[in-house]
Each structure stands twice: as C-alpha cells, then as structure tokens.
C-alpha cells in the first residue's frame, strides 16, 4: 500500500489545489511558506507593524476568496505576490483619499540589521531611502528579484509585464540605485577595479 505524500513534500501549486479542495492541513503548510514572504513584501512598504500584519491577513483572506481563480498550470508565488501588492496599493489609495497618509513612509521604519551594527543599519536605511526614490515599477522589480529572490519570469508574472521588460527595469533600476546610494554616501565598486574589465574573470 502506497504511503500518502507528506504535505511538506508537495510544491506550492499542489498544496494550493488541495487547499482549494478543502484540505485545511494543506493551508497550514502554505501559510508557513507564504506568511514570511508576504510579510516581508508588506513591511517594505508599510512600516507600522500592526497595520502590516493586518494587510497580510487581508491578503490571505483575498487568496481564500480567489482560490477558485487560481489556474492549476500557473505558479502560485507570483499570483499571491500580485494579490499582496494590490492589497497594499489599495491600503495606500484609501489612506491618500482620506488624507491620512501623504507619504508611504511614516518615518517609523526600522533597519533590518540589529543595533549592534550601526554602520550596516545606516547603510540599510539608505538603501530603503534610495529604493523609495525609484519609479514604482522599477522598485517592485528590484524588490521582488533581488531582495525576495524571485526569478525573472515569476517577477514578470507578478507585475503583469514581459520577462525582458522586468530584466530591463531591474538593470536600469540597479544602475539608478547605485547612483542614488553613491549620492547618499554608500560606495559602489572601487574605480580601480572597473566592473566590465573583470566581468570575464568572474
């Protein structure tokens, strides 16, 4: 008799199919996989922890309501990330309409590294400041690809654009980010070791 596959061994899409079919245990595994990712995405934009948690909760509710929309041949992560980003967008639109929040940054952002390393904490704060200055689409491409580690095709699906467009955005965004960080005092690669001359060796 074949033993049933442990839920942890299933990929995201198979788990979601089970969850959409009413398997609550599958949702528990999915939650464990997606809650940290979605929380990170929200926290990059919403710095109030309670509000961020509320938005992640709303995202899971939206995923639940949209569970029958998910195509079995699709990828779950970009689909969930898109819904999460739209929940955050709606939050800011509502806040701006209500004149509650003129800017997305409420000033309470906490550096990701601990207070024991103030230099890196300051650098991280400057990265956040520089990211906030990038155009919306560019910033999202960089956040999802370089900070969340999503492959370009998944980022493209999440943003609703082509993979090549994501690559262009990420590349241009990265160049702009370097310029912004340089202006903020975070240095790029040294001038004595030009990037291109070493590219072939790396």
């Amino acid at each position, binding site marked *: 008799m074949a033993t049933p596959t442990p839920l942890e061994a299933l990929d995201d899409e198979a788990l979601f199919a089970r969850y959409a079919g009413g398997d609550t245990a599958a949702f528990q595994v999915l939650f464990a996989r997606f809650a*940290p990712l979605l*929380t990170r995405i*929200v926290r990059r934009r919403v710095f109030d922890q309670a509000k961020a948690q509320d938005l992640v909760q709303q995202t899971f509710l939206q995923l639940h309501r949209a569970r029958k929309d998910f195509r079995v041949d699709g990828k779950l992560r970009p689909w969930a990330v898109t819904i999460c980003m739209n929940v955050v967008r709606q939050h800011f639109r509502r806040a701006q309409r209500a004149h509650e929040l003129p800017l997305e940054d409420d000033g309470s952002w906490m550096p990701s590294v601990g207070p024991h390393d103030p230099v890196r904490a300051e650098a991280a704060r400057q990265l956040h400041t520089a990211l906030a200055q990038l155009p919306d689409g560019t910033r999202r491409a960089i956040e999802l690809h370089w900070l969340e580690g999503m492959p370009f095709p998944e980022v493209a699906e999440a943003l609703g654009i082509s993979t090549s467009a994501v690559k262009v955005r990420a590349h241009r965004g990265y160049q702009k980010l370097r310029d912004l960080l340089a202006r903020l005092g975070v*240095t790029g690669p040294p001038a004595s070791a030009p990037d291109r001359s070493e590219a072939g060796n790396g």
Partner: protein
Amino acid sequence: MTCEEVQERLLVGADAVDDATRAHLETCGVCRVMDDERTQAPAGSGGDFSALFAAVQADQARERGPLAWLRSRPTWVRRGIIAGVGLLTAVIGLLALRRPDFSEYPTGRFFIELLVMAAALSAAVGVAVRSRLDLPSGRSATLWVALAILIPVVLAVLPQAHADHPASLLGVGSDLIPRAIGCLVWGLIMGTPTAIIAFLARRDDHGEPRRDLLLAGAAGLAGVIALEAHCPITDGTHLLLGHATVVVVVLGVVAFAGWLGGRVRRSRSS
C-alpha cells in the same frame, strides 16, 4: 565582476558565492547592503506567525453563506452572473413587458441598439471585475464610463425610429416631464438588481471609485436596456431626459455613496 553578476550569483545561493563574489562584496557597499537587506528580513517580518495564523483562520471561518459563495466564484463566473442579471432585464422586458410598438419599430435598429448597450454593459463588467484585486487603468475606466453615458445619449439623438404607433407619440409637451420621470424611476428600478449583485460580488470590503463607477455604469445600462425593451416613446427629448439619465443618476448615486462612506470611515477612525 559587475554588480548585476554578483547579485545574480548571490541569488543562486551559497554554492555560487566564490572568492571573486566575496571580494566584490568587500569593496562594493551597494551590493553589501542589498545582500544584507535580502538575508535579513525587515524588522517585524519574521518570527512567530501563530497570532496571524489564528486571525487568518478566523477570517476563513467567517467566509460562509451566500455572499461568501458569490465572492469565491471564479472571476469569469462573477462576470457572467453580473452581466447575466443585467441582460436578464432585457429578456424580461422583451418577453413580459414588451413595448407595444414592437411591430412598428425597425427590427434591425432595435436589436442593434440592444446589442450595442449589452456589449458596453458586458465590457464594463469585464473591465471592472478582476481576479487579483487589481484595478482597471484610469484610462480604460474613464473610457468605459464615458461610453456608458454616451451610448444612450447617441441613441436618443438619432433620427426618430418611427411615429407609427399612438403610444410612441406620448411624452411630449406637458407630458414630457411626468413621462420622463416615470421612465427614469422604472429604469432605476430595473438597474438596481444588477447594481446589487455587482457590489455584492466585490471581493474587497472597501470601495474603489474606478471599479465602482464602472459597475454603476453597467447597472445604469441594464436599466436603459430594460427601458428600450419596454418604453414605446420614440421622441428624442424623452429618450434623453427619461432614459439616458438613468446611467447618470446611478453613477451619481454611487459616487455620492462612495464619498459618504469615506467620510463616515474617516469620522469613525478619528
């Protein structure tokens, strides 16, 4: 190595990080902070998710009943239900409340008019109801709301379809305003089921002006379609005042309700 190459290598994982990558990280502050940001989650985004899980489970437990059922239908089904209710009014109008001048009204023109409005209604619903909580662009929302307003206006200013039935000659002179108001009210009543089902089928609990105005335009068109199938008056002024105004009034009501809802939420939160 370029910064891009270093970042790509870091994404692959520890196995791909070689001496050249490490050397780049030591000299490049940009790549170092990017790497820090990725490997160390923003404050408050890690740790214990048990409270969040309990809250999410409570949300899911509340998702019961007909409203939850409607919201959880696939997007194409929700679109079909909303547009279907709108078009059902036309069918009811044609079968049970057919205009008395039906045999005199040019058949081709009648069905083209219905078809144009039904297509605009379906398109507005298709643009408004989406699967991933995304919103239509401002341009497409404006376009379809404008079309929802303009189509009945254009139909009203076309040359009169006919004047061969006594009922078609009503609604002019001193009879203009009472008949126009009667049609406006009847159109609003017939558009209401579409508006109700459209707003109940929204998955988020807050209003979004762009999407809500599109749904209002669709509901208004449903009312105009019902009037087209029922009202025999062919005078252009009557069609403008009694029929085309249905869309405008529904849009106005929804815009006012959205504004009022925003004010109420603000006063509650302050």
